[in-house]
Structures are given as C-alpha cells and as structure tokens.
C-alpha cells in the first residue's frame, strides 16, 4: 500500500474570470490528521469540493491519486463510495428527522420487501453514537440537539458510510470551548482507528494541538506543507505562510487628521439568536471624525454580528452595552432609529441584504431616506431622480440611466449603489462590511477613493474586512476581533499582517 492515502497533483480550477486554484499539490499520509490553513477566499473550500466530487472530474485540471490509483469522481456519491466523506461548515442535517433517520438518509437500511427496517437502523445508530461519544437516543429529533452534538451526528453519519478519509470544513467554528475539545478528542480516537482526517480551520491553537501536518494555501496556490515531526507546526510559522504576500491592489493616498470622537461602544455583548452562546463578548471601540477604523477578524469572529447589533439591533438577542454618538448615549431600538442617530451600515452581502435587485437605481438609492424626498407622505419623483442622478455621476456608477435595474449591474456598481443609498441618509458614521468583496480591482480603487472623500468631508468610517492588506491600506487604526472579543487595537503605523493575524487568532483564555 502506498504511504499516501491521497495525492492531489497540480490541481487548477477556474471560474469565469477567476483562477480559484492554481497548481495546488496536497499529499495526505495514511492515518494522519492533516490541517489546511489559509485566509478567507484562499481556495481551501474549493480544493475540498474538487476532492469530494462536488466539482466533477473534467471541470478542473490536474490529477487525484487515491490509494495510489488515479481517481475520477462524477459526483459526491463516487467519492463516498471510496470512503471519502466531507462535512461542511453548514451542517446538512434535517432538523425534524431523528438522529437515526439523519444518519441513514440516502443510505437507508432496507429489510424485507425493500421497506426500511427501523429496528436495525436504530440499533446501528445507537452503536455509531456510542463510538462518537454522543449520549442520546437515536429517535431524538436532530433539531433538539445543540450544534456541538449535531456535529457529532454528522461524524456518526460519516462512520456509517465506512469512511476512510474524513474532511471537516471549519468543524469548531460554531462550537463553544467544551464542544470543541470533545470534537478534537474524537478526531484523535478516529485516528487510532486508522481513519485519516483533513481539517480546515482558522483556529491555530487547535491546529497546533492536533495536526500531524499542515498545508498552507494562499491565493489559490500551495505555499508549503509543515510537519509536526520536524517541529514546524507553530502558530508563527503558519501565520507567516498565510499572509506572506505583497500588496497587490493600490490604495489611494490620504491625509489623516482625525477630529472629535463620533461613535463609541462600551462593553457590548450580544447573544446568538437561537444558540446559547455569546457572539460578541464585551467589545469596545470608538471612531473619530475624519478617521477610518478597521475591524479585522476571521470568519466567525463576530464582526458582522457586532456591526449589525449596533445598527438598530438587527442581529442577536440580549444585547447589552452602551452606545455613544458624539459623547451622548443613544439607544436605537430599530434600524430607523439607528439611521436617525446618524449610523449607516452597508452589508457584506449586498444581494441578499443590501439591494432590491428587481428595482432600479433610483428606488434603491432613495430607499433608506425616502422621507427626505417627500412631503406629507408623497414622494417627489423628480427630486428623487435628481438625487439618484447626482449619485450616478458622483459615484461613477456605470449604467445608462438611473432607471436601470440594479440586478443587472456589476458587483462594483452595485456596491456604489449601496454606498449612494447610505450617503443619502447623511450619516455621521458609516460602517462598511466587506466593502470590496467580489468586485474587481478597478472598482475597489474607486471604492477606496470614495471612502477617502467621505473621510475628508469629516465622516467617520468603520471598515470590516477579511483582507488584511485592505485594512492596512485604508485605515488609521485597526481593532482585532477573535471569538467575539476585541483582542487588540493597533495604530496602522505599527500594524503588520503578521501581528494582526496573531491577534486575530488569539484565543479566549490567552486574553483573560
């Protein structure tokens, strides 16, 4: 038998206009726990989708050797047939079905006459639950379990398929510390049983605690593979691999002259809307007029949740803490009140939460401040067109007229519409969540220019971003967020990708 259970050679995967993976190589040894690290968007998930057959053979270039033999997968079923099972970050369980029903979904235990033998299924499920250390009845509906236990059900489901290579995408992202520890323990036990695991994770302390080898991916390319045996698996080493890249895009220069404080939050805590955990924990930050403040954090750190909870309590429950605007405490209870208080929030997912895609530029631009264009409840349509037309010209939105449907614009132009909408509310502080996600370099530059213009006009801007170069290129100060806590505040002159990444991956116990 080959030493490597899996070899992926020169994998290149192209999407229209984007090279997601370029000549990626990955060797996984039999019986090891292999971690894959990289920034958001580095190509980790794409690589795993190639491996599991979500992207079938033929849609990518390169070769996969499994057990020393070339493998070609037409779909997930083919890879599962060989014992490769992937557990996605978004769990694929049906909440209303029982544990046993979920475990054998699509793989039902049939008895006589092709009918499902539930006694057999429940008995087997009980055995599987025991092996993953989950003390629940197989007939319990999955929806009644917490996320940690649901994760274990997913693993039990993988075991039921005779898994030999288990892939976990961010398995602990939504788990609390106890559940995470339990899961990692389980992975070690599975390793003793000879099951190989690939784990994608942002939590470097977990990786250093459990992984035999680590492959670092950056911008769709393999950087290096580090080995525990050679003493290479350290947090510093991984971080260097993840961020070591030149600044690719340009950032327009800006004179920085911050004025008075505009917004400040203190001791801000937010609970998950349905799960029993804090998403934001005692966060505090402030932003001044004419200043750009960055919030850096990896996926699941609570960045968006923090911003949305400040923006009229649009996220979470049991929100506590104090919010000050210009030194005076305000308590906006809904979005309308937050807008009145001078806060604007441009969402990270403009298509889902930011725009009415079936409407035109005009209605989208006016949507958040329609009362400014109306008298006695009647909208002045001509004035509205004028406002939208001003935005189109001022923001350089590339569309033939303000009557163009927003859904047909490019990502960069859609983002300019979102910015126009919020600028028309005349905010004091503008929170931009991933303002350049999914838009091309030219449009990014334009967005940065607009930000500079706003700051020059005395607005306060908060930028949330996963791209550290972007924060380094645009901000005056950068806060780092990890597991819902502010773990650092760094002036941009002192900030490097390395020290930010170290703060972003700093874990809870180290903070206290």
């Amino acid at each position: 038998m080959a030493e490597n259970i899996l070899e992926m050679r020169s994998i290149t995967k192209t999407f229209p206009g984007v090279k997601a993976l370029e000549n990626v190589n990955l060797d996984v040894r039999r019986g090891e726990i292999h971690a894959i690290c990289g920034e958001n968007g580095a190509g980790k998930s794409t690589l795993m989708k190639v491996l599991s057959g979500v992207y079938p053979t033929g849609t990518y270039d390169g070769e996969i050797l499994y057990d020393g033999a070339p493998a070609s997968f037409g779909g997930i079923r083919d890879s599962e047939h060989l014992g490769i099972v992937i557990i996605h970050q978004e769990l694929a369980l049906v909440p209303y079905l029982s544990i046993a029903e979920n475990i054998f979904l699509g793989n039902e235990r049939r008895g006589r006459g092709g009918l499902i033998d539930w006694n057999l299924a429940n008995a087997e499920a009980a055995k599987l639950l025991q092996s993953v250390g989950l003390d629940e009845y197989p007939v319990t509906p999955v929806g009644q379990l917490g996320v940690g236990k649901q994760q274990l059900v997913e693993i039990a489901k993988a075991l039921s398929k005779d898994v030999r290579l288990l892939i976990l995408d961010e398995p602990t992202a939504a788990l609390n510390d106890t559940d995470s520890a339990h899961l990692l323990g389980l992975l070690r036990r599975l390793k003793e049983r000879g099951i190989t695991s690939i784990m994608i994770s942002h939590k470097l302390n977990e990786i250093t605690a459990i992984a035999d080898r680590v492959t670092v991916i950056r911008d769709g390319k393999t950087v290096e593979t580090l080995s525990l045996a050679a003493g290479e698996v350290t947090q510093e080493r991984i971080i260097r691999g993840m961020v070591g890249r030149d600044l690719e895009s340009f950032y327009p220069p800006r004179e920085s002259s911050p004025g008075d404080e505009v917004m400040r939050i203190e001791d801000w805590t937010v609970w998950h809307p349905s799960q029993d955990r804090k998403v934001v924990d005692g966060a505090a930050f402030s932003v001044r007029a004419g200043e750009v403040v960055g919030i850096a954090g990896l996926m699941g750190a609570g960045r968006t949740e923090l911003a949305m909870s400040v923006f009229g309590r649009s996220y979470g429950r049991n929100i506590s803490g104090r919010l000050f605007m210009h030194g005076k405490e305000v308590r906006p209870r809904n979005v309308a009140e937050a807008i009145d208080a001078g806060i604007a929030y441009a969402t990270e997912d403009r298509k889902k939460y930011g725009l009415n895609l079936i409407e035109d530029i005009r209605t989208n631009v006016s949507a958040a401040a329609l009362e400014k264009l109306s008298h006695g409840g009647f909208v002045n349509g001509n004035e509205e067109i004028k406002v939208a037309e001003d935005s189109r010209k001022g923001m350089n939105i590339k569309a033939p007229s303000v009557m163009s449907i927003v859904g047909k614009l490019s990502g960069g132009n859609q983002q300019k519409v979102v910015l126009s909408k919020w600028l028309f509310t005349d905010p004091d502080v503008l929170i931009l969540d991933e303002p350049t996600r999914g838009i091309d370099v030219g449009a990014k530059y334009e967005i940065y220019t607009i930000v500079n213009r706003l700051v020059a006009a005395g607005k306060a801007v908060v930028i949330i971003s996963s791209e550290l170069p972007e924060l380094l290129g645009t901000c005056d100060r950068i806060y780092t967020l990890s597991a819902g806590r502010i773990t650092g505040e760094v002036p941009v002159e002192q900030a490097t990708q390395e020290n930010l990444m170290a703060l972003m991956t700093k874990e809870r116990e180290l903070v206290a």
Partner: protein
Amino acid sequence: MTTAPPKLDKSATAGEAAPAAALHTGTSDLRSLVSRNLRQSGIYVAFVVIVALVAILTDGLSLNPTNVTNIVLQYSYILILAIGMVIVIIAGHIDLSVGSVVALTGAVSATLVIKQGMPWWVGILAALAVGLAIGAWQGFWVAYVGIPAFIVTLAGMLLFRGLAQEVLHSVSLSPFPPAYGKVATGFLNGLIGGNGYDAFTLLIFALAVLGYAFSSYRTRVARVRYQQPVESFPLFVLRVVVVAAVVMWFAWQLAHARGLPIVLIILAVLILAYGVLTKRTVFGRQVYAIGGNLAAAQLSGVKVKVVNFWIFVNMGFLAGVAGVIFSSRSNGAQPGAGNMFELDAIAACFIGGAAVTGGVGTVVGAVVGGLLVAVMSNGMQLLGVDQSIQSVVKGLVLLLAVAFDVYNKRRAGASR
C-alpha cells in the same frame, strides 16, 4: 398610459461624452427596456386583442352600449377587490378571505338596514367598519404574530363565512330600500338633458379627459425641468389624443345607454387614489421594497410590521366596499355571497402582471387584468358558452399569464 417607450431627449444625452463603453451598456439596457415594457404592456395588448376578438365573434354585440354598461356593473366588485389584492401581492402576501368578508360585511349591512330598519347610510358605514376591523384582525396575526398570510386568511375565509351565516341565520335577506340599491345600480343622468344621449355623462368624461391632458402636460414640464428624458412633443400629443378618443368613445357608449353609473365613479376614484398611493407615496414605495427584498427593506429602516399591518387593514376596507356594492347590486344579503371572489381577484392581479414572488405589480395592471377576465366571461356568456367551458378557459388564461411572467423573468435572468 405611460408605456410608450421614452425617447431620449437629444440635449440630455449630448451633455455626456459617451465613449464605446457607455454605448455598450446602452444597448444592453435597451434590451432590458424592451423586455420590461413587454412585461408591463403585454397586458394592455392582450386586453385589446381580447376585446377585438370578442367583438368579432359576437358581431359587435359586446360593444353595444347596454353591454358595456353591464360589464362595468357586473364586475365592479371584483375590480375593487383586485385593487386591494394587488397591494397585498406586491408585498409578498396573499388574501384568501375576501370573498367571505364580502359576505359578512353585506350581511351586517343588510341586517341593520332590512331587519332593524336603520337608514341606508348606517348600513354602509357599518359594513366599512366591519371590513376595517377584519383587516386589523388579520393584519395583527400576519404582521405582529408572524403567521403566514396564507394561513391567516385561509382561517379567515372559514371564520368570516361562518360568521356571515351566523349573522343571517343562514337565510337570505332582501330587499333593500331603493336608496341603498342606488349604490350599485344607480346612474347619474338627465341632469342637464341631451337629445337621445346623456349630456351630463359626456361632460364629466370630457372634464376627466381635460384633467388627464393637463396633468400629463404638467408632468412633462416638470420632467423637462429636471432634465429627464421625455417623449417627443408630437408623440406626446398623439398619446393624449388616443387616450382621449378611447375614453370619449366609452363615454359615448355609456351616454347612449343609461348614463353614468355611480359604481363607475367609485371605481374611478379608487383606481386614481390607489394608483397614486402605490406609485407616489412613501407607504407605496415601502410596499414594493418589502416585496422586492424583505431583508434589505428591514435594513433600510422600513418598519415592516407596521406596513404589513396597514396593507391588511386596507384590504379589509376595500372588501367592505365590495361587500356594500355586491349587496346593493344583488339587493340583499345571502350566506353564500362572494363565494370564490378571492380567486377572481387574485387571478386579476397575476394576469395583470403581478409577480408570485412579490415586489412587482400595478393597480392599473390588476384592474385591466380583471377587465380582461370580465370581457372574456361576458363574451362567452353572449356566445352562450357553457359555464363549465368558461371555467376551463379562465383557468387556462391564468396559467398562460403566469407562465408568460415566469418565462420573461427567466429570460431577463439569463441575459444578466
């Protein structure tokens, strides 16, 4: 009728240096303009085709003055329901209860007027009040409790039908005093005489046409002032003349029959008011925003619950109006009144271009959609087509209308 393709004013475009890139986006927008207008104007084209087809098949009988008057009288309450329903549908909801609400409001009114001997206007006010109360009830469950409108109004459909039967003790009540009957069957005529035709009707319509021409002109002037594209002046004149001609022909038909139906006045006022409400007010725009993208509307500060509540209150009110007109027309209240009205109203909205997914639709579209069904049904009745076949045809028309909508959307999506 604002569907004439806007012709770009030369002076407006000349100011912009338009290199090849802008030209490129210009053509793709032209395509979207066409497909968008097709979607909006498709219903008007279909309406004209149906009217012509029915006229040919009935040897012009369908355009006969009495028949034109009859169509208006006979389908007015469906059109009124459609006005409220299209707002509900634009916001992404549905209302299955309106038929039952028509029955209940009519029953309350009839009980007060016929049984208790109250004046006719007390009955009308009571019916409207009941409609408002029902709307508030359903709006509460949809907006504040968060139960899907389909369920709330399905429950309402059973609930209010049952209450209507309870109020009437399951027997019909009739007749109303003549004053009450005027609402749906009365005419304004003979006020200023005329020789074989009603001069008053013609006068009112002439005033309406003048008003239309004047407001069109004012809109045009305002758009020019804001440097917006407008159609060329000859085209503008042509549009106004065509609309005026069609309207005056309709007036001529009415004047030759029995004059100006009171129902038509009510209908015209409602169409005008709700057209303005949906297109020109903050409330109307918020309805479209909610239907187009609920999450984005919420994050733009729209008070979604409040808007949803008032949408249903309004639907209840209009169902009350329809209840008054229906009871007036049928000269009494029946426990089974208004059966299936909700489906006719919903069909009118979808035929009129409203989208099943919400965010799209117009009051005028829904009314024309309702008229299309009305003309078609009326034509088939004139031709003596079986009730069963009529139902089959109506079903197919609804299916085709929505299929057209889905096809259009997919094409628009593919060109993205």
